[in-house]
Protein backbone atom coordinates (compact mmCIF):
# COMPACT_ATOMS: atom_id res chain seq x y z
CA UNK A 1 0.00 0.00 0.00
CA UNK A 2 1.36 3.45 -0.85
CA UNK A 3 2.19 5.70 2.06
CA UNK A 4 -0.73 7.97 2.97
CA UNK A 5 -0.08 11.65 2.23
CA UNK A 6 0.66 14.07 5.00
CA UNK A 7 -2.42 15.84 6.35
CA UNK A 8 -0.36 18.98 6.90
CA UNK A 9 0.05 19.76 3.21
CA UNK A 10 0.29 23.51 2.60
CA UNK A 11 -1.71 24.63 -0.40
CA UNK A 12 -0.41 27.36 -2.68
CA UNK A 13 -3.88 28.84 -3.07
CA UNK A 14 -4.04 32.51 -2.15
CA UNK A 15 -7.50 34.02 -2.03
CA UNK A 16 -7.52 37.21 -4.14
CA UNK A 17 -8.13 40.43 -2.22
CA UNK A 18 -11.12 41.29 -4.41
CA UNK A 19 -12.54 37.76 -4.38
CA UNK A 20 -15.80 38.73 -2.68
CA UNK A 21 -16.25 41.79 -4.88
CA UNK A 22 -15.73 39.71 -8.02
CA UNK A 23 -18.33 37.14 -7.05
CA UNK A 24 -20.75 39.76 -5.74
CA UNK A 25 -20.58 41.28 -9.21
CA UNK A 26 -21.23 37.93 -10.87
CA UNK A 27 -24.15 37.25 -8.54
CA UNK A 28 -25.55 40.67 -9.36
CA UNK A 29 -25.41 39.90 -13.08
CA UNK A 30 -27.05 36.53 -12.52
CA UNK A 31 -29.86 37.90 -10.41
CA UNK A 32 -30.84 40.26 -13.23
CA UNK A 33 -31.71 37.23 -15.38
CA UNK A 34 -35.20 35.79 -14.86
CA UNK A 35 -35.17 32.11 -13.85
CA UNK A 36 -38.05 31.12 -16.17
CA UNK A 37 -38.36 27.61 -14.72
CA UNK A 38 -40.00 24.92 -16.80
CA UNK A 39 -41.01 21.54 -15.44
CA UNK A 40 -41.86 18.82 -17.95
CA UNK A 41 -43.22 15.49 -16.68
CA UNK A 42 -41.21 12.49 -17.90
CA UNK A 43 -43.54 9.49 -17.84
CA UNK A 44 -40.81 7.14 -19.15
CA UNK A 45 -38.65 7.78 -16.06
CA UNK A 46 -41.55 7.95 -13.58
CA UNK A 47 -42.20 4.96 -11.34
CA UNK A 48 -44.95 4.13 -8.90
CA UNK A 49 -43.07 5.65 -5.99
CA UNK A 50 -41.15 8.47 -7.75
CA UNK A 51 -42.28 11.23 -10.11
CA UNK A 52 -39.62 12.39 -12.57
CA UNK A 53 -39.48 15.68 -14.45
CA UNK A 54 -37.16 17.29 -16.95
CA UNK A 55 -36.30 20.77 -15.70
CA UNK A 56 -35.08 23.80 -17.58
CA UNK A 57 -34.15 27.23 -16.22
CA UNK A 58 -32.22 30.27 -17.36
CA UNK A 59 -28.85 31.20 -15.93
CA UNK A 60 -26.27 33.93 -16.38
CA UNK A 61 -25.55 34.93 -20.00
CA UNK A 62 -29.11 33.70 -20.70
CA UNK A 63 -27.94 30.11 -21.04
CA UNK A 64 -30.74 27.58 -20.65
CA UNK A 65 -29.77 24.88 -18.16
CA UNK A 66 -31.29 21.39 -17.92
CA UNK A 67 -31.78 19.23 -14.83
CA UNK A 68 -33.59 16.16 -13.60
CA UNK A 69 -36.06 16.51 -10.74
CA UNK A 70 -37.51 13.62 -8.77
CA UNK A 71 -39.93 13.74 -5.89
CA UNK A 72 -41.62 11.06 -3.83
CA UNK A 73 -45.11 10.29 -5.06
CA UNK A 74 -46.31 10.21 -1.47
CA UNK A 75 -44.86 13.13 0.46
CA UNK A 76 -45.63 15.68 3.11
CA UNK A 77 -46.88 19.09 2.06
CA UNK A 78 -43.36 20.44 2.46
CA UNK A 79 -40.45 18.09 1.74
CA UNK A 80 -36.72 18.53 2.33
CA UNK A 81 -34.66 18.86 -0.81
CA UNK A 82 -31.27 17.72 -2.04
CA UNK A 83 -29.36 19.18 -4.94
CA UNK A 84 -27.06 16.66 -6.59
CA UNK A 85 -24.05 18.01 -8.51
CA UNK A 86 -22.27 16.09 -11.27
CA UNK A 87 -18.74 14.86 -11.82
CA UNK A 88 -16.57 16.29 -14.59
CA UNK A 89 -17.20 13.61 -17.17
CA UNK A 90 -20.33 11.96 -15.91
CA UNK A 91 -23.76 12.50 -17.38
CA UNK A 92 -25.97 13.92 -14.62
CA UNK A 93 -27.96 11.05 -13.13
CA UNK A 94 -31.69 10.85 -12.53
CA UNK A 95 -31.86 11.12 -8.72
CA UNK A 96 -34.59 8.57 -8.08
CA UNK A 97 -32.78 7.03 -5.12
CA UNK A 98 -32.83 10.35 -3.26
CA UNK A 99 -36.56 10.69 -3.85
CA UNK A 100 -37.00 7.18 -2.46
CA UNK A 101 -35.30 8.41 0.71
CA UNK A 102 -37.92 11.15 1.08
CA UNK A 103 -36.29 14.16 -0.60
CA UNK A 104 -37.25 16.32 -3.53
CA UNK A 105 -34.09 15.87 -5.54
CA UNK A 106 -32.60 18.04 -8.28
CA UNK A 107 -29.72 16.82 -10.45
CA UNK A 108 -28.26 19.74 -12.39
CA UNK A 109 -26.55 19.63 -15.79
CA UNK A 110 -24.49 22.85 -15.84
CA UNK A 111 -23.69 24.42 -19.22
CA UNK A 112 -21.71 22.21 -21.55
CA UNK A 113 -23.14 19.02 -20.09
CA UNK A 114 -25.40 16.80 -22.14
CA UNK A 115 -28.84 18.49 -22.51
CA UNK A 116 -27.31 21.90 -21.57
CA UNK A 117 -24.84 22.21 -24.42
CA UNK A 118 -26.80 23.95 -27.17
CA UNK A 119 -25.46 27.44 -26.34
CA UNK A 120 -22.13 26.51 -24.73
CA UNK A 121 -20.10 23.46 -25.60
CA UNK A 122 -16.32 23.64 -25.16
CA UNK A 123 -16.19 19.84 -24.91
CA UNK A 124 -14.29 17.31 -22.81
CA UNK A 125 -11.35 17.57 -22.58
CA UNK A 126 -11.29 21.37 -22.84
CA UNK A 127 -13.81 22.68 -20.31
CA UNK A 128 -11.18 23.08 -17.61
CA UNK A 129 -9.08 25.50 -19.65
CA UNK A 130 -11.76 27.21 -21.72
CA UNK A 131 -10.96 30.97 -21.51
CA UNK A 132 -8.78 30.26 -18.49
CA UNK A 133 -6.77 33.46 -18.97
CA UNK A 134 -9.78 35.66 -18.12
CA UNK A 135 -11.86 35.26 -14.98
CA UNK A 136 -14.71 37.24 -16.55
CA UNK A 137 -15.20 34.68 -19.32
CA UNK A 138 -13.67 31.51 -17.84
CA UNK A 139 -15.91 28.49 -18.40
CA UNK A 140 -16.53 27.89 -14.71
CA UNK A 141 -17.95 31.39 -14.11
CA UNK A 142 -21.20 30.38 -15.79
CA UNK A 143 -20.86 26.75 -14.75
CA UNK A 144 -20.76 27.69 -11.06
CA UNK A 145 -23.69 30.08 -11.40
CA UNK A 146 -25.73 27.36 -13.13
CA UNK A 147 -25.45 25.21 -10.03
CA UNK A 148 -26.27 28.09 -7.67
CA UNK A 149 -29.38 28.81 -9.73
CA UNK A 150 -30.49 25.27 -8.97
CA UNK A 151 -31.13 26.50 -5.44
CA UNK A 152 -33.41 29.17 -6.92
CA UNK A 153 -35.31 26.46 -8.74
CA UNK A 154 -35.81 24.51 -5.52
CA UNK A 155 -36.95 27.68 -3.75
CA UNK A 156 -39.53 28.18 -6.52
CA UNK A 157 -41.18 24.85 -5.76
CA UNK A 158 -44.12 24.91 -3.36
CA UNK A 159 -43.44 21.32 -2.23
CA UNK A 160 -39.89 22.18 -1.08
CA UNK A 161 -39.27 23.33 2.48
CA UNK A 162 -36.86 26.28 2.00
CA UNK A 163 -35.39 25.70 5.43
CA UNK A 164 -34.31 22.14 4.63
CA UNK A 165 -32.12 22.19 1.52
CA UNK A 166 -28.93 20.15 1.24
CA UNK A 167 -26.23 19.81 -1.42
CA UNK A 168 -24.06 16.86 -2.29
CA UNK A 169 -21.80 15.45 -4.96
CA UNK A 170 -18.46 13.79 -5.51
CA UNK A 171 -15.39 14.74 -7.53
CA UNK A 172 -16.44 17.81 -9.52
CA UNK A 173 -19.74 17.45 -7.68
CA UNK A 174 -17.77 17.69 -4.44
CA UNK A 175 -16.08 20.89 -5.57
CA UNK A 176 -19.41 22.33 -6.67
CA UNK A 177 -20.89 21.38 -3.32
CA UNK A 178 -18.21 23.50 -1.66
CA UNK A 179 -18.82 26.52 -3.90
CA UNK A 180 -22.59 26.24 -3.59
CA UNK A 181 -22.54 25.93 0.19
CA UNK A 182 -20.26 28.97 0.27
CA UNK A 183 -22.40 31.17 -1.96
CA UNK A 184 -25.94 30.15 -1.05
CA UNK A 185 -26.88 30.68 2.61
CA UNK A 186 -30.09 28.72 1.98
CA UNK A 187 -27.99 25.52 2.02
CA UNK A 188 -28.43 23.95 5.45
CA UNK A 189 -26.17 20.90 5.08
CA UNK A 190 -23.51 19.84 2.61
CA UNK A 191 -21.61 16.64 1.84
CA UNK A 192 -18.61 16.86 -0.49
CA UNK A 193 -16.77 13.76 -1.73
CA UNK A 194 -13.30 13.69 -3.31
CA UNK A 195 -13.53 17.41 -4.04
CA UNK A 196 -12.24 18.52 -7.44
CA UNK A 197 -11.73 22.22 -8.33
CA UNK A 198 -9.87 22.62 -5.04
CA UNK A 199 -6.15 23.39 -5.19
CA UNK A 200 -5.93 23.44 -9.00
CA UNK A 201 -2.29 24.51 -9.11
CA UNK A 202 -1.36 22.14 -6.30
CA UNK A 203 -3.03 19.25 -8.08
CA UNK A 204 -1.24 19.72 -11.38
CA UNK A 205 2.04 19.10 -9.56
CA UNK A 206 0.77 16.32 -7.30
CA UNK A 207 -0.70 14.20 -10.06
CA UNK A 208 -0.51 13.78 -13.81
CA UNK A 209 -3.89 12.36 -14.65
CA UNK A 210 -6.86 13.81 -16.48
CA UNK A 211 -8.83 15.99 -15.96
CA UNK A 212 -6.28 18.17 -14.07
CA UNK A 213 -3.74 17.23 -16.74
CA UNK A 214 -5.67 19.54 -19.09
CA UNK A 215 -4.00 22.45 -17.27
CA UNK A 216 -0.54 20.96 -17.72
CA UNK A 217 -1.31 20.41 -21.41
CA UNK A 218 -2.34 24.05 -21.73
CA UNK A 219 0.72 25.39 -19.93
CA UNK A 220 3.05 23.17 -21.95
CA UNK A 221 1.71 24.77 -25.12
CA UNK A 222 1.37 28.29 -23.66
CA UNK A 223 3.99 28.67 -20.91
CA UNK A 224 3.90 32.44 -21.24
CA UNK A 225 0.32 32.47 -19.94
CA UNK A 226 1.05 30.84 -16.56
CA UNK A 227 0.58 34.01 -14.51
CA UNK A 228 -2.81 34.71 -16.07
CA UNK A 229 -3.90 31.11 -15.55
CA UNK A 230 -2.87 31.15 -11.90
CA UNK A 231 -4.60 34.50 -11.39
CA UNK A 232 -7.88 33.25 -12.86
CA UNK A 233 -7.92 29.93 -11.06
CA UNK A 234 -7.46 31.58 -7.65
CA UNK A 235 -10.93 33.11 -8.10
CA UNK A 236 -12.45 29.69 -8.86
CA UNK A 237 -10.62 27.54 -6.35
CA UNK A 238 -12.83 25.82 -3.80
CA UNK A 239 -10.19 26.59 -1.20
CA UNK A 240 -10.81 30.31 -1.80
CA UNK A 241 -14.53 29.79 -1.24
CA UNK A 242 -14.18 27.58 1.83
CA UNK A 243 -14.08 30.19 4.57
CA UNK A 244 -17.54 31.40 3.53
CA UNK A 245 -19.17 28.08 4.43
CA UNK A 246 -21.19 28.22 7.64
CA UNK A 247 -23.57 25.23 7.33
CA UNK A 248 -22.74 21.79 8.70
CA UNK A 249 -20.51 19.97 6.21
CA UNK A 250 -18.82 16.60 5.86
CA UNK A 251 -15.98 15.82 3.45
CA UNK A 252 -14.72 12.39 2.44
CA UNK A 253 -11.47 11.71 0.62
CA UNK A 254 -9.57 8.64 -0.58
CA UNK A 255 -5.94 8.55 0.47
CA UNK A 256 -4.95 6.87 -2.81
CA UNK A 257 -7.06 9.17 -4.97
CA UNK A 258 -5.41 9.33 -8.39
CA UNK A 259 -7.76 12.05 -9.73
CA UNK A 260 -8.15 14.60 -6.91
CA UNK A 261 -5.04 14.43 -4.74
CA UNK A 262 -5.92 13.86 -1.08
CA UNK A 263 -3.48 16.60 -0.10
CA UNK A 264 -5.88 19.10 -1.65
CA UNK A 265 -8.77 17.58 0.30
CA UNK A 266 -6.91 18.15 3.55
CA UNK A 267 -6.08 21.71 2.53
CA UNK A 268 -9.69 22.41 1.66
CA UNK A 269 -10.99 21.00 4.92
CA UNK A 270 -8.58 23.10 6.94
CA UNK A 271 -9.94 26.28 5.31
CA UNK A 272 -13.66 25.50 5.72
CA UNK A 273 -15.22 28.15 7.93
CA UNK A 274 -18.07 26.11 9.42
CA UNK A 275 -17.81 25.18 13.06
CA UNK A 276 -19.70 21.93 12.41
CA UNK A 277 -17.40 20.14 9.98
CA UNK A 278 -15.94 16.66 9.82
CA UNK A 279 -13.41 14.96 7.53
CA UNK A 280 -13.58 11.27 6.63
CA UNK A 281 -10.26 10.10 5.13
CA UNK A 282 -10.41 6.56 3.71
CA UNK A 283 -7.13 4.67 3.46
CA UNK A 284 -7.06 2.01 0.74
CA UNK A 285 -9.44 3.98 -1.43
CA UNK A 286 -8.98 6.02 -4.56
CA UNK A 287 -11.36 8.39 -6.28
CA UNK A 288 -14.32 6.48 -4.86
CA UNK A 289 -13.30 8.14 -1.56
CA UNK A 290 -14.66 5.21 0.40
CA UNK A 291 -18.13 5.42 -1.14
CA UNK A 292 -19.10 1.88 -0.20
CA UNK A 293 -18.57 2.71 3.47
CA UNK A 294 -19.41 6.40 3.34
CA UNK A 295 -22.89 6.26 1.78
CA UNK A 296 -24.40 5.38 5.12
CA UNK A 297 -22.58 8.32 6.72
CA UNK A 298 -24.05 10.70 4.14
CA UNK A 299 -27.54 9.27 4.58
CA UNK A 300 -27.35 9.68 8.34
CA UNK A 301 -25.94 13.21 8.02
CA UNK A 302 -28.77 14.46 5.81
CA UNK A 303 -31.39 12.54 7.80
CA UNK A 304 -30.24 14.36 10.92
CA UNK A 305 -30.06 17.82 9.37
CA UNK A 306 -32.90 17.72 6.84
CA UNK A 307 -35.29 14.97 7.92
CA UNK A 308 -34.87 15.60 11.63
CA UNK A 309 -34.10 11.95 12.23
CA UNK A 310 -31.24 10.25 14.01
CA UNK A 311 -30.27 7.18 12.03
CA UNK A 312 -28.34 4.44 13.78
CA UNK A 313 -25.54 2.97 11.69
Amino acid at each position, binding site marked *: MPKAPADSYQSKVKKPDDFDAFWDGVMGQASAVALEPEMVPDPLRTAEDVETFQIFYTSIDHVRVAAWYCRPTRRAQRAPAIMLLPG*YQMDPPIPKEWARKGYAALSVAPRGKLRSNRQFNPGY*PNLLTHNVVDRHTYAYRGFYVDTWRGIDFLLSRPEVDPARIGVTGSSQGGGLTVTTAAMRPEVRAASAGAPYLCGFMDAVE*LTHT*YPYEEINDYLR*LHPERRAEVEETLAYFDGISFADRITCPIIVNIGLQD*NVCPPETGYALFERIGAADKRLYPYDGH*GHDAGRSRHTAVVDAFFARHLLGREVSR
Partner: protein
Amino acid sequence: MSEPTPAAVRDYWQETLAALARYPARPEIEPLPLRSTLFAQLFGVRLTSLGPYRLFGYLSIPAGDGPFPAIYYAPKYQSVLEIIPQGTANLQRSRYVTFSLAGRGQRNADAPYAAMFPGLLTDGIDSVASYVFRSIVADSVRGLEFLLTRPEVYPARVVVAGNDLALMTAASTPGATHVVATPALFYKTAALAPKSQAYPLEEINDYLRAHPSRAEFVRRTLAHCDLLGFAPRVTAATLLMAGAPGSVLDGAALQPLAAALRGPVTVYESQQSLYKDGLYAERWMATQCGIADVQSILPQHWRD
Protein backbone atom coordinates in the same frame (compact mmCIF):
# COMPACT_ATOMS: atom_id res chain seq x y z
CA MET B 1 -42.13 -15.39 -29.41
CA SER B 2 -39.35 -17.91 -28.89
CA GLU B 3 -35.75 -17.25 -27.93
CA PRO B 4 -33.46 -16.91 -30.96
CA THR B 5 -31.34 -19.94 -31.72
CA PRO B 6 -27.56 -19.64 -31.43
CA ALA B 7 -27.39 -19.98 -35.21
CA ALA B 8 -29.82 -17.09 -35.67
CA VAL B 9 -27.76 -14.92 -33.35
CA ARG B 10 -24.58 -15.83 -35.19
CA ASP B 11 -26.19 -15.03 -38.55
CA TYR B 12 -27.40 -11.67 -37.23
CA TRP B 13 -23.91 -10.60 -36.27
CA GLN B 14 -22.30 -12.03 -39.38
CA GLU B 15 -24.70 -10.00 -41.49
CA THR B 16 -23.86 -6.93 -39.41
CA LEU B 17 -20.14 -7.41 -39.92
CA ALA B 18 -20.64 -8.09 -43.63
CA ALA B 19 -22.54 -4.81 -43.89
CA LEU B 20 -19.72 -3.04 -42.05
CA ALA B 21 -17.18 -4.49 -44.45
CA ARG B 22 -18.95 -2.80 -47.37
CA TYR B 23 -17.80 0.60 -46.04
CA PRO B 24 -14.07 1.37 -46.15
CA ALA B 25 -12.81 3.14 -43.03
CA ARG B 26 -11.21 6.05 -44.92
CA PRO B 27 -9.34 7.33 -41.85
CA GLU B 28 -8.29 10.96 -41.48
CA ILE B 29 -5.55 11.42 -38.89
CA GLU B 30 -4.71 14.87 -37.55
CA PRO B 31 -2.06 15.74 -34.91
CA LEU B 32 -3.35 17.38 -31.72
CA PRO B 33 -0.41 19.42 -30.37
CA LEU B 34 -2.28 20.51 -27.23
CA ARG B 35 -2.38 16.92 -25.93
CA SER B 36 1.04 15.84 -27.23
CA THR B 37 4.03 15.52 -24.91
CA LEU B 38 7.69 14.62 -25.12
CA PHE B 39 6.74 11.00 -24.52
CA ALA B 40 3.67 10.61 -26.72
CA GLN B 41 1.97 12.27 -29.64
CA LEU B 42 -1.80 12.50 -29.85
CA PHE B 43 -3.90 12.39 -32.99
CA GLY B 44 -7.58 12.83 -33.70
CA VAL B 45 -8.90 10.14 -36.00
CA ARG B 46 -12.07 10.20 -38.09
CA LEU B 47 -13.23 7.01 -39.76
CA THR B 48 -16.34 5.51 -41.32
CA SER B 49 -18.48 2.79 -39.84
CA LEU B 50 -21.75 1.06 -40.65
CA GLY B 51 -24.47 3.32 -41.93
CA PRO B 52 -22.32 4.98 -43.24
CA TYR B 53 -21.48 6.94 -40.11
CA ARG B 54 -18.35 8.94 -39.35
CA LEU B 55 -16.76 8.22 -35.95
CA PHE B 56 -14.03 9.91 -33.92
CA GLY B 57 -11.21 8.57 -31.78
CA TYR B 58 -8.04 9.62 -29.98
CA LEU B 59 -4.85 7.80 -31.03
CA SER B 60 -1.74 8.16 -28.88
CA ILE B 61 1.64 6.96 -30.12
CA PRO B 62 4.64 6.70 -27.78
CA ALA B 63 7.88 8.45 -28.68
CA GLY B 64 10.71 6.18 -29.74
CA ASP B 65 11.03 3.06 -31.77
CA GLY B 66 8.14 0.66 -31.70
CA PRO B 67 6.35 -1.50 -32.05
CA PHE B 68 4.52 -1.04 -28.76
CA PRO B 69 1.82 -2.96 -26.97
CA ALA B 70 -1.56 -1.38 -27.51
CA ILE B 71 -4.69 -0.71 -25.50
CA TYR B 72 -7.93 -0.20 -27.37
CA TYR B 73 -10.51 1.57 -25.22
CA ALA B 74 -13.82 0.46 -26.71
CA PRO B 75 -16.76 2.94 -26.60
CA LYS B 76 -17.96 3.59 -23.07
CA TYR B 77 -21.51 4.06 -21.85
CA GLN B 78 -21.28 7.83 -21.37
CA SER B 79 -21.44 10.89 -23.58
CA VAL B 80 -17.81 11.93 -23.01
CA LEU B 81 -14.90 10.45 -24.94
CA GLU B 82 -11.68 10.35 -22.90
CA ILE B 83 -8.16 10.17 -24.31
CA ILE B 84 -7.33 7.62 -21.64
CA PRO B 85 -9.65 6.82 -18.73
CA GLN B 86 -9.91 9.48 -16.03
CA GLY B 87 -7.29 8.87 -13.36
CA THR B 88 -4.95 6.85 -15.56
CA ALA B 89 -1.39 8.14 -15.40
CA ASN B 90 -0.66 10.14 -18.51
CA LEU B 91 2.62 8.21 -18.63
CA GLN B 92 0.66 5.15 -19.67
CA ARG B 93 0.87 6.73 -23.11
CA SER B 94 4.67 6.44 -23.01
CA ARG B 95 4.53 2.64 -23.08
CA TYR B 96 1.37 1.72 -24.94
CA VAL B 97 -0.23 2.85 -28.15
CA THR B 98 -3.71 3.81 -26.97
CA PHE B 99 -6.81 4.31 -29.05
CA SER B 100 -10.14 5.41 -27.57
CA LEU B 101 -13.21 5.48 -29.75
CA ALA B 102 -16.48 7.37 -29.54
CA GLY B 103 -19.26 5.15 -30.78
CA ARG B 104 -22.05 6.87 -32.64
CA GLY B 105 -23.93 9.25 -30.41
CA GLN B 106 -21.03 10.09 -28.11
CA ARG B 107 -19.31 13.48 -28.16
CA ASN B 108 -17.29 14.09 -31.31
CA ALA B 109 -19.39 11.41 -33.03
CA ASP B 110 -22.75 12.95 -32.16
CA ALA B 111 -23.77 14.32 -35.54
CA PRO B 112 -26.19 13.47 -36.94
CA TYR B 113 -27.04 11.11 -34.05
CA ALA B 114 -26.71 12.48 -30.50
CA ALA B 115 -27.27 9.81 -27.89
CA MET B 116 -28.94 10.44 -24.56
CA PHE B 117 -27.63 9.03 -21.29
CA PRO B 118 -29.84 7.55 -19.97
CA GLY B 119 -31.64 6.53 -23.13
CA LEU B 120 -29.09 4.88 -25.40
CA LEU B 121 -29.59 1.39 -23.98
CA THR B 122 -33.21 1.22 -25.14
CA ASP B 123 -32.94 3.17 -28.39
CA GLY B 124 -34.63 0.97 -30.98
CA ILE B 125 -34.68 -1.99 -28.61
CA ASP B 126 -38.03 -3.35 -29.73
CA SER B 127 -36.48 -4.59 -32.99
CA VAL B 128 -33.22 -6.45 -33.47
CA ALA B 129 -32.88 -4.78 -36.86
CA SER B 130 -33.14 -1.23 -35.52
CA TYR B 131 -31.40 -1.63 -32.17
CA VAL B 132 -28.68 1.00 -31.87
CA PHE B 133 -26.19 -1.40 -30.33
CA ARG B 134 -26.09 -3.41 -33.56
CA SER B 135 -24.37 -0.37 -35.05
CA ILE B 136 -22.32 0.43 -31.95
CA VAL B 137 -20.83 -3.07 -31.94
CA ALA B 138 -19.92 -2.47 -35.58
CA ASP B 139 -18.37 0.87 -34.57
CA SER B 140 -16.27 -0.82 -31.94
CA VAL B 141 -15.13 -3.50 -34.37
CA ARG B 142 -14.17 -0.80 -36.85
CA GLY B 143 -12.07 0.88 -34.18
CA LEU B 144 -10.07 -2.27 -33.48
CA GLU B 145 -9.64 -2.89 -37.21
CA PHE B 146 -8.20 0.62 -37.56
CA LEU B 147 -5.82 0.23 -34.62
CA LEU B 148 -4.44 -2.98 -36.08
CA THR B 149 -3.48 -1.16 -39.28
CA ARG B 150 -1.00 1.00 -37.37
CA PRO B 151 2.64 -0.02 -37.85
CA GLU B 152 3.48 1.18 -34.32
CA VAL B 153 1.34 -1.59 -32.79
CA TYR B 154 2.92 -4.87 -31.73
CA PRO B 155 0.20 -7.27 -32.86
CA ALA B 156 1.02 -9.94 -30.29
CA ARG B 157 0.03 -7.57 -27.45
CA VAL B 158 -3.26 -5.88 -28.12
CA VAL B 159 -5.56 -5.32 -25.15
CA VAL B 160 -9.22 -4.45 -25.65
CA ALA B 161 -10.57 -2.75 -22.55
CA GLY B 162 -14.07 -1.63 -21.67
CA ASN B 163 -17.51 -2.79 -20.72
CA ASP B 164 -19.43 -5.52 -22.57
CA LEU B 165 -18.28 -4.06 -25.87
CA ALA B 166 -14.72 -5.22 -25.15
CA LEU B 167 -15.83 -8.86 -25.21
CA MET B 168 -18.22 -8.35 -28.12
CA THR B 169 -15.45 -6.75 -30.15
CA ALA B 170 -12.86 -9.40 -29.34
CA ALA B 171 -15.37 -12.06 -30.37
CA SER B 172 -16.31 -10.37 -33.62
CA THR B 173 -12.98 -9.67 -35.28
CA PRO B 174 -9.48 -11.13 -34.98
CA GLY B 175 -6.64 -9.25 -33.35
CA ALA B 176 -7.37 -8.90 -29.67
CA THR B 177 -4.80 -10.86 -27.69
CA HIS B 178 -6.10 -9.71 -24.30
CA VAL B 179 -9.39 -8.39 -22.94
CA VAL B 180 -10.23 -6.46 -19.79
CA ALA B 181 -14.01 -6.40 -19.56
CA THR B 182 -16.43 -5.07 -16.98
CA PRO B 183 -19.85 -6.41 -17.97
CA ALA B 184 -22.62 -3.93 -17.27
CA LEU B 185 -25.12 -3.95 -20.13
CA PHE B 186 -25.58 -7.28 -21.88
CA TYR B 187 -25.19 -10.19 -19.52
CA LYS B 188 -28.52 -11.89 -18.72
CA THR B 189 -30.00 -8.41 -18.88
CA ALA B 190 -33.66 -9.36 -19.14
CA ALA B 191 -33.36 -11.45 -15.99
CA LEU B 192 -31.10 -9.13 -13.99
CA ALA B 193 -32.61 -5.71 -14.74
CA PRO B 194 -35.69 -6.26 -12.56
CA LYS B 195 -33.31 -6.92 -9.64
CA SER B 196 -31.73 -3.47 -9.98
CA GLN B 197 -32.97 0.10 -9.62
CA ALA B 198 -29.66 1.57 -10.77
CA TYR B 199 -28.98 2.97 -14.22
CA PRO B 200 -28.16 1.83 -16.85
CA LEU B 201 -30.17 -1.36 -16.18
CA GLU B 202 -33.00 0.82 -14.83
CA GLU B 203 -33.43 2.02 -18.43
CA ILE B 204 -34.77 -1.43 -19.28
CA ASN B 205 -37.16 -1.26 -16.33
CA ASP B 206 -38.31 2.23 -17.35
CA TYR B 207 -38.92 1.08 -20.91
CA LEU B 208 -40.89 -2.00 -19.97
CA ARG B 209 -42.95 -0.05 -17.45
CA ALA B 210 -43.91 2.37 -20.22
CA HIS B 211 -44.29 -0.31 -22.93
CA PRO B 212 -45.26 -3.60 -21.30
CA SER B 213 -46.64 -4.99 -24.54
CA ARG B 214 -43.14 -4.89 -26.05
CA ALA B 215 -41.54 -7.11 -23.44
CA GLU B 216 -41.05 -10.10 -25.73
CA PHE B 217 -39.46 -7.97 -28.43
CA VAL B 218 -37.09 -6.48 -25.88
CA ARG B 219 -36.21 -9.90 -24.54
CA ARG B 220 -35.48 -11.10 -28.07
CA THR B 221 -33.23 -8.15 -28.85
CA LEU B 222 -31.33 -8.56 -25.61
CA ALA B 223 -30.87 -12.26 -26.35
CA HIS B 224 -29.09 -11.32 -29.58
CA CYS B 225 -26.67 -9.16 -27.58
CA ASP B 226 -26.03 -11.45 -24.64
CA LEU B 227 -22.37 -12.01 -23.83
CA LEU B 228 -22.95 -15.74 -23.51
CA GLY B 229 -23.50 -15.82 -27.27
CA PHE B 230 -20.20 -14.06 -27.92
CA ALA B 231 -18.07 -15.85 -25.34
CA PRO B 232 -17.30 -19.05 -27.30
CA ARG B 233 -15.58 -16.92 -29.94
CA VAL B 234 -13.28 -15.12 -27.48
CA THR B 235 -9.86 -16.76 -27.48
CA ALA B 236 -7.94 -13.86 -25.95
CA ALA B 237 -6.68 -14.04 -22.38
CA THR B 238 -9.39 -12.26 -20.43
CA LEU B 239 -9.66 -10.39 -17.17
CA LEU B 240 -13.30 -10.25 -16.12
CA MET B 241 -13.93 -7.41 -13.69
CA ALA B 242 -16.89 -8.51 -11.57
CA GLY B 243 -18.94 -6.47 -9.16
CA ALA B 244 -18.49 -6.70 -5.41
CA PRO B 245 -19.74 -9.84 -3.70
CA GLY B 246 -23.51 -9.75 -3.46
CA SER B 247 -23.98 -7.32 -6.32
CA VAL B 248 -26.01 -8.18 -9.41
CA LEU B 249 -22.90 -8.89 -11.50
CA ASP B 250 -20.60 -10.36 -8.86
CA GLY B 251 -18.11 -13.14 -9.42
CA ALA B 252 -20.61 -15.91 -8.85
CA ALA B 253 -23.04 -14.36 -11.33
CA LEU B 254 -20.32 -14.16 -13.97
CA GLN B 255 -19.14 -17.76 -13.59
CA PRO B 256 -21.20 -19.06 -16.56
CA LEU B 257 -19.66 -16.34 -18.70
CA ALA B 258 -16.16 -17.15 -17.51
CA ALA B 259 -16.73 -20.81 -18.27
CA ALA B 260 -17.94 -20.03 -21.79
CA LEU B 261 -14.86 -18.03 -22.80
CA ARG B 262 -12.36 -20.00 -24.87
CA GLY B 263 -9.14 -18.38 -23.67
CA PRO B 264 -7.61 -18.26 -20.20
CA VAL B 265 -9.81 -16.28 -17.79
CA THR B 266 -9.17 -14.45 -14.55
CA VAL B 267 -12.21 -13.28 -12.62
CA TYR B 268 -11.51 -10.36 -10.31
CA GLU B 269 -14.21 -9.39 -7.83
CA SER B 270 -14.39 -5.69 -6.98
CA GLN B 271 -13.09 -4.64 -3.57
CA GLN B 272 -15.22 -1.48 -3.86
CA SER B 273 -12.07 0.60 -4.10
CA LEU B 274 -11.20 2.28 -7.38
CA TYR B 275 -7.60 2.21 -6.19
CA LYS B 276 -7.45 -1.54 -5.54
CA ASP B 277 -9.55 -2.47 -8.57
CA GLY B 278 -7.70 -0.12 -10.89
CA LEU B 279 -4.29 -1.19 -9.64
CA TYR B 280 -5.14 -4.84 -10.26
CA ALA B 281 -6.17 -4.14 -13.84
CA GLU B 282 -3.11 -1.97 -14.57
CA ARG B 283 -0.77 -4.63 -13.22
CA TRP B 284 -2.55 -7.40 -15.12
CA MET B 285 -2.26 -5.53 -18.42
CA ALA B 286 1.40 -4.68 -17.81
CA THR B 287 2.27 -8.28 -16.97
CA GLN B 288 0.46 -9.58 -20.03
CA CYS B 289 2.22 -7.01 -22.20
CA GLY B 290 5.70 -7.65 -20.85
CA ILE B 291 6.04 -4.30 -19.07
CA ALA B 292 8.19 -5.03 -16.05
CA ASP B 293 8.36 -1.60 -14.42
CA VAL B 294 4.65 -0.93 -14.04
CA GLN B 295 5.40 1.37 -11.08
CA SER B 296 6.71 3.99 -13.49
CA ILE B 297 3.40 4.26 -15.31
CA LEU B 298 1.07 4.23 -12.32
CA PRO B 299 -0.58 7.37 -10.93
CA GLN B 300 1.58 8.97 -8.25
CA HIS B 301 -0.80 8.05 -5.43
CA TRP B 302 -0.76 4.37 -6.39
CA ARG B 303 3.00 3.90 -6.36
CA ASP B 304 4.66 1.97 -3.53
